[in-house]
């Protein structure tokens, strides 16, 4: 069966510091990978998605970037965090055949920028 791992679970970072969140998927090959952000009490905002190694699509221009160095690894980064980067960050995967398969989410990282 497939599993998704996301870490850390919580993170407190000062403004201006760098960020690196990592997500890995096990049990499948060539998944589609996604980064979402959820503000407190709000909906799901798609930040980035990837259909293959090195292929990143950005949905919202912002202070963040994403990379996919390996097939089942997805990394969310920032060089300098802003207060507005605080939120709940969720990694997700789906089967990458191009069809409409469901998303499977990790348990998220709660980021607080102080």
């Amino acid at each position, binding site marked *: 069966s497939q599993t998704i791992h*996301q870490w850390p679970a919580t993170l407190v970072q000062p403004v201006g510091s760098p960020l690196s969140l990592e997500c890995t998927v096990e049990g499948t090959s060539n998944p589609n990978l*996604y980064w979402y952000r959820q503000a407190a*009490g709000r*909906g799901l905002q798609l930040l980035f998605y990837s259909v293959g190694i090195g292929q990143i699509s950005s949905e919202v221009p912002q202070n963040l970037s994403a990379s996919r160095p390996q097939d089942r690894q997805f990394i969310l980064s920032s060089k300098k965090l802003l207060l507005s980067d605080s939120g709940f960050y*969720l990694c997700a995967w789906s089967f990458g055949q191009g069809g*409409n398969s469901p998303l499977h989410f990790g348990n*998220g990282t709660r980021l607080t920028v102080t």
Partner: protein
Amino acid sequence: QQQVKQSPQSLIVQKGGISIINCAYENTAFDYFPWYQQFPGKGPALLIAIRPDVSEKKEGRFTISFNKSAKQFSLHIMDSQPGDSATYFCAATMYGAQKLVFGQGTRLTINP
């Protein structure tokens, strides 16, 4: 045209009652409609999904009703329980789209 509109934003139901959450879409190319359930501090989890070739799908106490002509679909939770208290998201996508369009979410509270 890519939006999915979800209502209500919040809902309070008594234990044993029926919870109903509605979603509407405009893009007639959408052909897959999942619902997600999210508990506080956790990622959303797939609850139930439907394709437009059926008008209803039931899994336990959870039922999706789908009205293709009205471009609407809804989630019904029968005999609602306090453990159903969570945020629910509807979503839609189409073949080859690679990503889901989510509704804004409904915070459901079941009072004991």
